[in-house]
């Protein structure tokens, strides 16, 4: 080795070249950290089937902006549905709560229109509707059909329930006075309650038309009614005729209720007429029990208080009665009645019902309130139930039948009449009739003897000679009258005198006429005037 060889330092000096891998490391780590930091939430969405869901391809869109991707689709262990694991963007983290909804958008052609055509080429995607609700959620259940309204749209979302699923279905209009103000979003059938349930949405500002006294009814199709007045056809707008729909309004004469919140439940009536007969929302059930004939008492019959209708008869609780076991001995028949405070101008609210219940309780327990069965119409025999205070009845207790309170009853109407009649007969029985008859017999006996005395009087000789004398008197009277007959001397002399007088008067008449025309004719001679000649017609 040459001494000239440069000495090479083997000191552990930092070489600038190591900056390069450091930079690479920092860059790599920062990518990892960045991707970890910006990693969005991973959620699962349950769908009925995996139709149109492609792992790594199907996107999640919010307002048509991609916010995530389906990573995998697996079948649930119980094979009831599929679970899509979805990776969302980081900024979606705050929008995941119980009101967030997901549904698959595909091309669809329906009565409501054509939608999702873009998905034919680009493939279906999952649409997300953020909700404003509390709490975070990672597992969701996807909707099978798209909700009709964005979750944050202004308006009100209500639930309608109906005992039978009419022709209303998702997508139908909700009408107010014939104007579409909202739509039916979903329709489900609740097997437990045996009710069809509809989610409807009413757009702002029309949601203010809905209040607690509002009623909803089905306007689907055509309602045809024939009566003596002719044929009445009622229809909604054309699309509701074809597709079905829901209308709402406040029943006539019902005061407007208070404002309501989203999510409230309403009954969906079958027709507008049904609303007119059931215009009130709140009411209370009572039972009245009768031991008399209920012929003529039909469901719907009025329940009145002093002649003012406060409710109606719901039905006879025969099933419930039978369920209690037939004991014989003529048990009272329970009648379910439904009383609506709204009918007597009280507010149609639950508070009014509670107030009414207190009044009934007080009335029954203290003031002798009773229900009676009365005949409303004597011709048809329709009956009604009347509730009133009977001061002569003492305090009683509200009974209990099944789950209903029982208002005590008293018998009235025909039954009461029968009672009164039998009372009357009893009084009649108590009258001293035999003595009266004996008295009358006495009186009649006296009259008999009086008549016998009269007979004796008539049988006497004077009485018998009376007719003969009467006949001779009448013969004398006839002779007298014959002297005045037409061919008697008196009559003839009278006739001659009258004739002479008549002749004299005629000659006197000529003289008197002469004198009336010309009074001086007795002294001066009469000059005759020329006959009058009519004048010629002069032009």
């Amino acid at each position, binding site marked *: *080795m*040459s001494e*000239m*060889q*440069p000495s090479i330092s083997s000191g552990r000096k930092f*070489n600038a*070249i*190591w900056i*390069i*891998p450091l*930079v*690479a*490391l920092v860059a*790599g780590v920062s*990518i*990892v950290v960045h991707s970890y930091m910006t990693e969005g939430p991973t959620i699962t969405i349950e769908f009925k089937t995996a139709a149109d869901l492609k792992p*790594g*391809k199907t*996107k999640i869109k919010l307002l048509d902006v991609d916010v995530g991707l389906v990573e995998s689709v697996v079948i649930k262990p119980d094979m009831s549905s599929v679970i899509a694991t979805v990776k969302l963007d980081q900024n979606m983290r705050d929008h995941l709560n119980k009101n967030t909804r997901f549904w698959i958008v595909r091309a669809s052609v329906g009565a409501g229109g054509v939608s999702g055509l873009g998905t034919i*080429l*680009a*493939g279906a995607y999952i649409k997300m509707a953020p909700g404003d609700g509390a709490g975070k959620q990672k597992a969701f259940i996807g909707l099978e059909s798209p909700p009709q309204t964005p979750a944050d749209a202004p308006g009100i979302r209500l639930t309608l329930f109906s005992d039978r699923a009419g022709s209303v279905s998702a997508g139908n209009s909700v009408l107010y006075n014939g104007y579409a103000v909202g739509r039916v979003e979903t329709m489900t059938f609740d097997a437990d309650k045996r009710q069809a349930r509809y989610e409807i949405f009413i757009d702002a500002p029309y949601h203010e038309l809905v209040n607690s006294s509002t009623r909803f009814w089905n306007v689907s199709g055509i309602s045809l009614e024939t009566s003596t007045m002719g044929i009445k056809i009622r229809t909604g707008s054309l699309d509701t005729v074809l597709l079905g729909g829901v209308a709402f309004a406040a029943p006539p004469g019902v005061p407007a209720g208070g404002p309501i919140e989203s999510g409230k439940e309403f009954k969906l009536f079958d027709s507008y007429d049904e609303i007119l007969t059931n215009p009130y929302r709140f009411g209370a059930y009572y039972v009245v029990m009768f031991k008399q004939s209920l012929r003529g008492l039909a469901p719907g019959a009025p329940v009145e208080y002093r002649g003012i209708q406060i409710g109606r008869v719901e039905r006879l609780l025969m099933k419930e009665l039978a369920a209690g076991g037939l004991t014989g001995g003529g048990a009272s028949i329970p009648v379910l009645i439904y009383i609506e405070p709204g009918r007597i101008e009280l507010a149609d609210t639950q508070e009014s019902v509670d107030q009414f219940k207190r009044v009934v309780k007080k009335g029954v327990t203290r003031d002798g309130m009773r229900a009676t069965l009365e005949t409303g119409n004597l011709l048809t025999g329709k009956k009604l139930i009347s509730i009133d205070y009977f001061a002569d009845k003492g305090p009683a207790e509200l009974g209990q039948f099944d789950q209903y309170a029982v208002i005590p009853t008293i018998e009235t109407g025909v039954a009461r009449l029968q009672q009164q009649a039998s009372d009357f007969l009893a009084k009649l029985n108590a009258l001293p009739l035999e003595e009266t008859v004996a008295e009358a017999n006495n009186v009649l006996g006296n009259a008999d003897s009086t008549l016998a005395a009269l007979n004796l009087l008539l049988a006497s000789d004077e009485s018998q000679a009376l007719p003969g004398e009467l006949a001779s008197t009448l013969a004398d009277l006839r002779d007298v009258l014959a002297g005045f007959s037409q061919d008697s001397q008196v009559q003839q002399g009278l006739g001659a005198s009258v004739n002479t007088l008549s002749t004299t008067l005629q000659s006197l008449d000529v003289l008197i006429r002469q004198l009336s025309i010309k009074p001086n004719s007795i002294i001066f001679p009469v000059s005759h005037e020329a006959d009058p000649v009519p004048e010629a017609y002069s032009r």
Partner: protein
Amino acid sequence: MSDKPKTAASQGLASCHLCLKLVSVDVHVCPRCGSAIHLRKSNSLERTLAFLVTASILYIPANLLPIMITDQLGQPTESTIIGGVVLLIDMGSMPIAAVIFFASVMIPVSKLAMMYYLCWSVRHGPPETARQRTVFYRITEFIGKWSMIDVFVVAILVALVNLNNLLVIRPGTATVAFAGVVIASILAAESFDPRLMWDQQEDNNE
């Protein structure tokens, strides 16, 4: 040992890196081309290792991140290197899959492995394998540039396939990382001074 050829270093001579002129180690500037004269490439091992580490680090995102994004009718499909190979095998294009696999996986990995081995062997390797290691070095130097094929494929596809909404190919982040891997490994091979292996043998001989 006298019949053995003497090395230039033992004669106090150094070769110019650029024009290969033999000059005395005392001279620091090549009298012919003017470039700096070193007996051996300065800090060769350290530099090589640094580039190797860089390449190794970059190789991780190059494989994990998507190298190519295909927008087909607005539906972007991201594909990684291995994903692309698997896709090609699924599609039955075995030759293309093999080419991509060799260019993108086999070559870079084997090159990195060989370079690590060479760096290690300069200090600790058995001297009798020096000739074999030189062959390794030659191979490394030769195949290194071919690993860029993947980047080229992406670059060409991006330029060629741009049918607006129908089909668009975009380069992914991994393209940059992969290019980094290739460049770092080329630089590593460049930084490595194969004469170090022979120096070791010389030292052993003396």
